[in-house]
C-alpha cells in the first residue's frame, strides 16, 4: 500500500490543512473538521450541509461554495463524521432560513446525522430537514435492509439543491427539489482494483488480475458479482442495464449523464466509457441534456467508474446550469 501521506491517523486533518491553504475562499474549522463558505452564514438563505467519510474527494469539501454546499463535515476515511460536527456545521451556516442535511444512505451516516438533528432540535432553534440519497441500483432495496447506498446522485443533488437554496427558496422547497433529484436519479459502479484505507494498511479486497467487481460501492464494499475482465463496451452494458431497468429515462427533458471516476482510473478511460454510455443511451432512446465526466465521488485510489443518470425536467436543468463556484464544480460565475 503506497500512499502520499504521513501518519495514517493524520490524513484527514492534514488534507484539511491543504484545502485551507489551497482555497482562500473557503474556511476550515480544523477542530470540528468542517469546510465552510467564507461568507457563511448567508442571511436569509437556506443552509446546505453534507458530510461523510473522507476518501471520496472532491466530495464533499470540494463542493462547498456559492451555488452548492454551505459546509461539509469530514469524517475519518470511510467513516461517517460524528454528530458534533454536523451540529457545529448547522450552527455555522444557519442564516435564519433553516438548514438542509444531505445524507448518503449508510447506516453510520444516517444515525450520526439523526443524532445531530436531535441535538440541533434540543440545543438550537435551527430548523433542520434531512434528505437521504439512495440511488445505487446495485443494492437490493427493501424495508428490511439498510436500503440502497447513496452514490453519484449526491453530486448532482448537492449542485441542484444548492442552486435552489441560492435562489432564496424556503427550506421545504429546497428539500422538495432535493428529493425530486434523488427520486429521479440512479447509479451503478464497478471496480478494476481495490482501494486501501490508510489505517488498515492493506487493500480492502483482493481482485484477481483477470476479474472485476460489478456493483461496487464507494467504500470498496463488495458489489453484486465478480465477472471476468471485459471491454469498456461490455462494462457500460453491465452498468446501464440495471439503471435503465429501474427507471424509465425516456421522455421528459432528457437526462444528466454522469460518468464518474473512482479515483485511480485516468480521464482518458472515463471518456472511452462516456462514449459507450452515450451510445447505449442513444439506442435506448434517451436524450442526453447535460453531461459530466470526471472523478467527483471517489473511493481513494480504486480504479473503476460509476454511471449516474438523472431524469431531468426543465427546472432541474435550469438549476443545474445555474452558477456554481466550488473547487470541484465551477461555472457561470
Amino acid at each position: 500500500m503506497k500512499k502520499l501521506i504521513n501518519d495514517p491517523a493524520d490524513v484527514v486533518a492534514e488534507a484539511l490543512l491543504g484545502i485551507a491553504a489551497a482555497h482562500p475562499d473557503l474556511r476550515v474549522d480544523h477542530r470540528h473538521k468542517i469546510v465552510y463558505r467564507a461568507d457563511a452564514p448567508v442571511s436569509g438563505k437556506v443552509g446546505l450541509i453534507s458530510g461523510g467519510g473522507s476518501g471520496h474527494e472532491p466530495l464533499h469539501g470540494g463542493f462547498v461554495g456559492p451555488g452548492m454546499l454551505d459546509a461539509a463535515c469530514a469524517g475519518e476515511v470511510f467513516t461517517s463524521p460524528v454528530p458534533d460536527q454536523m451540529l457545529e456545521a448547522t450552527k455555522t451556516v444557519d442564516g435564519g432560513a433553516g438548514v438542509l442535511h444531505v445524507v448518503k444512505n449508510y447506516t453510520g451516516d444516517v444515525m450520526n446525522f439523526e443524532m445531530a438533528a436531535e441535538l440541533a432540535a434540543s440545543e438550537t432553534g435551527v430548523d433542520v430537514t434531512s434528505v437521504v440519497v439512495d440511488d445505487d441500483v446495485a443494492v437490493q432495496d427493501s424495508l428490511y435492509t439498510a436500503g440502497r447506498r447513496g452514490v453519484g446522485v449526491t453530486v448532482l443533488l448537492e449542485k441542484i439543491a444548492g442552486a435552489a437554496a441560492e435562489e432564496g427558496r424556503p427550506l421545504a422547497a429546497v428539500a422538495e427539489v432535493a428529493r425530486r433529484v434523488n427520486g429521479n436519479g440512479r447509479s451503478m459502479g464497478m471496480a478494476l482494483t481495490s482501494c486501501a484505507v490508510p489505517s488498515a494498511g492493506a487493500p480492502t479486497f483482493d481482485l484477481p488480475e483477470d476479474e472485476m467487481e460489478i456493483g461496487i460501492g464507494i467504500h470498496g464494499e463488495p458489489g453484486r458479482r465478480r465477472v471476468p475482465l471485459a471491454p469498456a463496451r461490455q462494462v457500460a452494458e453491465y452498468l446501464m442495464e440495471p439503471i435503465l431497468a429501474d427507471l424509465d429515462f425516456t421522455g421528459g427533458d432528457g437526462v444528466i449523464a454522469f460518468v464518474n471516476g473512482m479515483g485511480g482510473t485516468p480521464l482518458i478511460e472515463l471518456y472511452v466509457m462516456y462514449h459507450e454510455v452515450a451510445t447505449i443511451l442513444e439506442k435506448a432512446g434517451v436524450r442526453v441534456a447535460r453531461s459530466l465526466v470526471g472523478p467527483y465521488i471517489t473511493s481513494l485510489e480504486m480504479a473503476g467508474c460509476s454511471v449516474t443518470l438523472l431524469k431531468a425536467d426543465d427546472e432541474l436543468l435550469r438549476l443545474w446550469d445555474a452558477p456554481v463556484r466550488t473547487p470541484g464544480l465551477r461555472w457561470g460565475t
Partner: protein
Amino acid sequence: MTVELAALERWIRGFAALIGENTALLTRLDSAIGDADHGANMDRGMTAVVAALDREPPASAAGLLKQVGMTLVSTVGGASGPLYGTFFLRMATASGEVTSLDGPAFAKALRAGLEGVVARGKAEAGDKTMYDALAPAVDELDSALAAGVPLGDALGRAAEAADRGRDATVPMLARKGRASYLGERSVGHQDPGATSSALLVGAAAAAVGPSAAAP
C-alpha cells in the same frame, strides 16, 4: 456481590485494551464484508475514552457511563459510534448517580443499553450485527442471576453466550449495516461489530472477576 465504580472503570479500560489488541482483526473482518474501518473506529474511540477517564475521573456510575457514551459518539463516527454511544448513554440513565450497582441493577443497565442499540439501529436477532452478540449475553445474564448464580460467574456465562452469538453470525445473511449490501455474499463471514461486542462482554466478566468458590 456488586459492581463498584472501580470495577466499571476496570471494565472500560479492559475493553479499551482488548480493542487495542484486536484492532487489526476487527478491521480485517470489516474488510471482508464492510469498509475496513471497524478496528480503527473502535480504537480511536476507546483511546479517547481512556484519555477522558485519565483526565476527569468520574464520580458515579452514571457519570462514568455517560462520559464513555459521549466520548464514543463524538469520536467514533460510522455505525458503531452512535450504536456503542447510545448503548453507554442508556446504561448511564438506567444506572443513576450511584457508585455501585448490584447484579440486577447492572443487568438492568445492560438491557437498557441493548434497547438503546435497537432503538438507534432497528436491528433484530439474526440480522448479523452486534445485537447478535449482545442480546444473548444480556439474556444469559438475566437468567443466570435469576437462577441464583453469583454475578461474577453469571457475567462469565454471559461472555460465553456473547462468544457463541458472535460465532453464530458467521452463517447469517446480513440485513443491516454495510454488510447487507452483500446479500448472499455476506454468508460465511463473522460480523465485526458482534466481535467487538463479545470483547465488551468478556471485558465485563474479567473486570468483575469470577465469584469466589463456595466454601
